[in-house]
Every structure is written in structure tokens, then in C-alpha cells.
């Protein structure tokens, strides 16, 4: 019996070309809209620096929250496939498909001054609305699903025997997590964190609705691009191009990290 010929797939690529062009079009347009000199000077525009500062501070805090709290959650989610875990995994992913503006309205309804939770918080002076805290909350919500989903998959791929061996050598459960599971999954966790960071940097809708828009306090880069569109087109396009490059670099980093063989995978 002869081996079947390799399946021809190039017609499928031809059919996919229009959508590829559509995906790439805006990115190429953004990166080529301005001469590089203008792009370089836009880096020093005060509005850009303010927004970049807010974006960096909030998104790195969000990232710390996502990784710090999401890793244990993923570790627990990866332990089985029962109805409770599946239900919670569903809830974790839900924000991904929620329109960001809808999420913003939800956050206002949850933390707003006139709500059961927001009222007492406001009385204590802890109301998050219109603060950098609100930006961080919005970013954390949109970034967590990405990270937790990737981390859960990574933990599921771990060789269960390695964990058993660790236990039999006297490791307590927490040590198994810290000393075995996390180090063995570090590439996937780093990839997830990189993507989560990019997502947090790009958050727009929920931030605009929930955190408001104030330069130097809650105006992140995407909000600054949106506001500058109305006054200074060149700076808006400049900021947009830099954001395109930055998020592209993060995505590339995440993909490179994810492509390597997960260190904890059982050898073939």
C-alpha cells in the first residue's frame, strides 16, 4: 500500500487571503502613516508621556494581581474536570466575550456610589470610581481570563508522576506547587502573563466608562489616543503606532515563550 499523497491545502490559503489582508491592513497603515521623524517626536509629547506613565503603572499592577491571584486559581482549576471546576472555568472566561463597555457599566453598577457595595466603600473613602484603582480593576478583569486559561492548560500538561514523586519525597502540597509545578510550567506561565499584560495595556471601554478620563490619573494610552483624535491627529496616530509596536512585541514574546516544549511535559 502506497502512502497517501500530502493533502493539498494551498486553495484554503487563497480563500483565507482576504481576511488576512483585512487583519494586516490597519497595522501596516498605522505603522506607515507617519514619517519616522514625526513618530520619534511624538514620543516626547507631554500627553503621550503622561498617558504612558499611567498605562505602565496601572498595567504592571494589574499584571501582578493577575499572576499573583490567577496562578493559584489555575492550579486548582487544573486538578480535575468536575462540574464545579467546569462552571468556574466558564465564569473565568466570560469577561473575554463581554463587550468592554458593558463590563464598564457592570463595574459602575457594582462599585458606584449609589450601590450596596459602592456606598459603604465611598463612606470609608475607598470608592474606586475615577481613580487609578478603577483602571486596575478593569484591566485585571479583562486580562485574568487569558492568563488563567493558559496557566490551567499548562498545569494540566504536567506529568502527574512528577508531583507524586515530589509528595513521596516529603513535599507538602504548597511545596509541590511552588517547587515543582510553577518552575516546570514557567514558560507557559510567562507566555500567559505576557499576553495578559498586552490585553491590560489595550483595555479601553471599561476604563472609559468606569474610571473616567483624566490626564495623569486615569487617562491610559488607548484613552489618550481616543481623546487626541479630536484635537491633534498626528500625536494620536503617533501614540497609536507606538502602542501597535509595543503590543506586537509583547505578543511576539509571548508566542516565542509558548512555542518551546513545556519543560514539565513528559519526555516522548
Amino acid at each position, binding site marked *: 500500500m502506497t502512502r497517501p499523497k500530502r493533502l493539498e491545502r494551498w486553495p484554503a490559503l487563497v480563500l483565507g487571503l482576504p481576511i488576512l489582508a483585512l487583519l494586516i491592513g490597519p497595522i501596516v497603515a498605522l505603522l506607515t502613516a507617519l514619517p519616522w521623524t514625526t513618530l520619534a517626536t511624538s514620543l516626547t509629547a507631554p500627553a503621550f508621556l503622561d498617558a504612558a506613565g499611567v498605562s505602565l503603572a496601572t498595567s504592571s499592577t494589574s499584571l501582578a494581581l493577575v499572576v499573583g491571584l490567577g496562578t493559584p486559581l489555575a492550579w486548582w482549576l487544573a486538578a480535575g474536570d468536575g462540574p464545579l471546576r467546569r462552571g468556574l472555568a466558564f465564569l473565568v472566561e466570560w469577561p473575554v466575550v463581554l463587550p468592554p463597555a458593558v463590563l464598564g457599566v457592570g463595574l459602575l453598577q457594582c462599585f458606584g456610589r449609589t450601590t450596596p457595595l459602592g456606598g459603604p466603600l465611598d463612606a470609608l473613602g475607598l470608592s474606586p470610581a475615577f481613580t487609578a484603582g478603577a483602571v486596575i480593576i478593569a484591566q485585571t478583569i479583562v486580562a485574568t481570563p487569558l492568563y488563567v486559561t493558559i496557566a490551567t492548560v499548562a498545569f494540566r500538561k504536567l506529568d502527574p508522576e512528577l508531583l507524586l514523586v515530589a509528595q513521596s519525597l516529603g513535599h507538602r502540597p504548597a511545596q509541590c506547587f511552588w517547587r515543582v509545578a510553577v518552575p516546570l510550567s514557567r514558560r507557559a506561565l510567562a507566555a500567559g502573563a505576557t499576553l495578559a499584560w498586552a490585553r491590560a495595556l489595550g483595555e479601553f471601554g471599561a476604563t472609559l466608562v468606569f474610571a473616567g478620563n483624566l490626564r495623569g490619573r486615569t487617562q491610559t494610552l488607548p484613552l489618550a489616543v481616543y481623546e487626541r483624535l479630536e*484635537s491633534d491627529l498626528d500625536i494620536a496616530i503617533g501614540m497609536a503606532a507606538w502602542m501597535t509596536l509595543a503590543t506586537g512585541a509583547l505578543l511576539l514574546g509571548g508566542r516565542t515563550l509558548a512555542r518551546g516544549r513545556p519543560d514539565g511535559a513528559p519526555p516522548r
Partner: protein
Amino acid sequence: MRRAVHGPGPKPRRRGRCPIIGRSIAFFAAAGCQPTPSAEPPTLEILAAASLVDALPPLLDAFERIAPDWRLQTDTGGSHRLGHQLRAGRRADVFMPAHPAELADFREADGWSAPVWYAQNQLSIALSQAASIADLAALPQLERIVLGTPGAPIGVYTERFLRRGQAVYGEGWRRALERRVVSREGNVRRLRARILMGEADAAIVYRSDLIAGHAPALPVPEALSPPIHYAAIARRRPDHAGERWLAFLKSATAQRILQRHGFGAAP
């Protein structure tokens, strides 16, 4: 942003009184009521400032009674954004921004009519239920104040008001007030929404945005409010549809509707 279609065929359902949700429902309601494409009725597309969002539906109703065969499409939002779209090539027949400066780029040589001045407005301070201040001097005592972005007409007028207020109440008043600003919004209706949701204590809006019987307000003295005049332009077409709308805006019917919504009479 709101887009609605009026005209022959089943009429779109009027949106309810719910101020925030009603907007978005109107969009979906409009999608389901395209008239049958038998004899294509003349269409008039109107881009209007966010501050006109409540006055526009009754204006459209009244105009429909004069010109029942026409299909009227409206899109309301920040004047600056709408102007930007027009400059970028958006086809629309009528432009009704909240600041006449937005009209500067659309000249008669390019096929636009001369501006028609049809209404006036005034600045006002919308307050939340909880906020109680006696006068403007006390405005910086409130904790959360929201203003328009510098590019939006409401932001431009607000800046002028702040400059005049500074001359009266002192530089410290302005600095204290600006320290209380928690957000800048791209159009006046979003400022209004912050008050309606109870998230802000005060918003500098137009008198026409005040919510009758809902929230307290502080009038801005005439001496401090910059003059706010509304002008509209129309693209010249063979059927003079746009010019007819502009003439309608000056009619007694339209003026009555505008004044019922808090606008001042045409200058």
C-alpha cells in the same frame, strides 16, 4: 451615538424615558424598520450635536408632518467627532454642531449652504441629588466634578466660563475646582449621565441638558456664561431638502419645540 430612521413604512418605536438604555434601544429599533424599497423616498441625513438629542425627535416628528414623504436619518454625538467624520468624507446633508467653529471647514464654495442661526443655549451646573451648594463660589467644595474634553464644544465653553469665573472668584477658586475634576468626557450627554448615575456631584453642562424635576442645578449668571449660538448648514442638493430643514428650524413650530427643551430663541 444614536442613529434613528424616520419616514414612510412602519415607524420606529419611540424610545422610552430611560435616559441611558433608551439610546441604544433606538439603534436596534431603527434597524428593523427599513421601508420597502419601492419608490426610493428622498433621504435627509442629519448629524446633530449631542445636546440636541432630546429636542431632535419632536423636531423630526413636526417636520414629517410638513414633508411626509421624506426619510430622515439622524446621528447624534460629540460635535467634534461628527465634524471630523464629515471632513473625512462622510456623506451627510445637514450638520448641526454645538459650536459654530465646527462649521468653519464647510464653505459655500464646497457646496454647503450659509449657516442658519436657529438657537441659543447657556451653561448651567447640573448637581447630583446629594450635592447642595448655594452658589458658584462654593463649587470647588464638591468632591467630584466632571467637565468636557478641551476639544468638545462643551469643553471649549467651559474653559471660557472658568476664565471668567477666575476673574470674579479668584485664581484659587479655579485651581481648587480643577483639583476636583475626576473625568473629562467627549460630549455633554456623557457628563449628564455621570450625574444621573450618581457618580459625579457636579457637571458643567448646557441649560438644555438639565433634567427637569430630577436633579438640582445651579444657574450660571449671564455675565459668566459665554454666548452659545447654534448654527446649522446643509449640503446644497437639487431638491433643496437640506435648505428646507434649515428653514423649518427657524419656523415657529421648531422654535417652540427647542424652547420647550431649554434652548433660547434664535438670535
